[in-house]
């Protein structure tokens, strides 16, 4: 089976040096480690927002970065979905439009909005589809951001500390939702976190980071099997 992600890259930024290599299968992989360990930088390299100094990155077997061969697929052609810590929804567009912008598989505006609406339904956010991000709570914004990340039929979903700015109750609810969506959509995902509990609850594989290096990789054992998340995804629409 082709790995979801194969990565071996190095990048120097000022005094900080990232030098990591790992291979991830489908399901949810978690990059876990303290702040400043290089986890988010790794996501930016995978997304194509930053270029590595040396190395290669392949997504589902397709090489998107190969510094030696000067291969570099631009960010917009990588079919990556991203969810950021503070959502980063476009403030001048409604929740629905934010998601519709990410829909790659439909060409017409009406079709894109229909796809977007279906994703908002799946994450329990359809009731505030017409609202702007400024009027949504943190949890609601992250639901929309998750819908946006998945709506473009991505080859890989990247989640950069998507729950760290939320309070504990909302965080638990969204963990269930994220885990459920990853399983049901079958989109391989890489999540960055410095929260050990979150890593355990969400990850199938945990990649430990420290000082720009991978210090260990561990498969998370789940008594109920990989396919069943702890607590079925149950979106209520209210966070």
């Amino acid at each position: 089976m082709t790995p979801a992600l194969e990565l071996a890259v190095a990048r120097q930024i000022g005094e900080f040096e990232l030098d990591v290599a790992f291979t991830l299968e489908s399901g949810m992989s978690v990059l876990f480690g303290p702040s400043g360990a290089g986890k988010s930088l790794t996501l930016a390299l995978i997304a194509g927002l930053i270029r590595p100094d040396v190395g290669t990155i392949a997504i589902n077997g397709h090489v998107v970065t190969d510094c030696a061969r000067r291969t570099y697929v631009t960010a917009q052609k990588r079919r990556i979905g991203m969810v950021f810590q503070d959502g980063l929804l476009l403030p001048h567009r409604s929740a629905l439009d934010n998601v519709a912008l990410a829909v790659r598989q439909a060409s017409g505006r009406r079709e894109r909005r229909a796809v977007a609406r279906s994703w908002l339904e799946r994450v329990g956010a359809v009731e505030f589809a017409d609202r702007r991000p400024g009027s949504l709570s943190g949890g609601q914004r992250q639901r929309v951001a998750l819908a946006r990340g998945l709506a473009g039929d991505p080859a890989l979903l990247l989640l950069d500390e998507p729950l760290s700015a939320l309070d504990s109750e909302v965080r638990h609810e969204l963990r269930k939702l994220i885990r459920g969506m990853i399983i049901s959509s079958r989109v391989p995902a890489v999540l960055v976190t410095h929260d050990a509990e979150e890593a355990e609850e969400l990850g199938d594989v945990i990649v430990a980071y420290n000082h720009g290096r991978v210090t260990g990789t561990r498969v998370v054992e789940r008594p109920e099997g990989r396919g069943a998340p702890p607590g079925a995804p149950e979106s209520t629409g209210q966070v």
Partner: protein
Amino acid sequence: MTGLVPRSWLNGLGIPPWVWSPLSVSLHAAFEATIVVALVGSALGFLLAKGRFPGRDAIETVCSLPMALPPTVVGWYLLTQMGGPGPIRDAEVRLFGHPLTFTFNGIVIAQIIESFPYCLRFSRTAIAGVDPRFEEVGRAMGLSRWRTTLLVTLPLARRGLVAGVAMAFGRALGDFGATMIVGASVPMATTVPIALYNAVFYGSHEQAKVLALVQLAVAFAILLGVSRLGKLRPW
């Protein structure tokens, strides 16, 4: 204005020619100058904010010189370059059949030069102030660079862009020094500030009072309207 509203109506409303004629020239010239400035100034502001090429600061400094120079100095350079012997005057003659000094187009050019730095600086600052992470989101969503600019960067920078255009329009509408030197006070190039100057110079204080009030009211109304545009939902 007289192109849109028949003169007989203006006369019927009791607005005398010595008001509507310079007002028409002022609005028309400022409008044309602002269109050019908005397009070129915003585009150059975008390039300066986003581009990584040598000489960016030099370009901004040169384009901003009219802000630091007295308008009469700008007017003098325009007069000598546009009206004096040289390649610029030759090009004007080839294109228009005559030099542009003391013409309506001449004052439009003077107003473009005078108002350009305001639009340029506002747009550069507004575009540079957009959180680059939003643009990264756009690229990660699969938007091309062009669509990211159109759908993400420009809407987020819209308040600064609109403010720059408003400032440019206000500067063009209120210019006196450069316009006076390039256009003198030939009728088709007499703006409200020049008409006001003439009224004061010839002792027509009542006319001066009315023209000052008209300029004040028009500037206030237009700038207020343009400011409100920046608060509207973007495209």
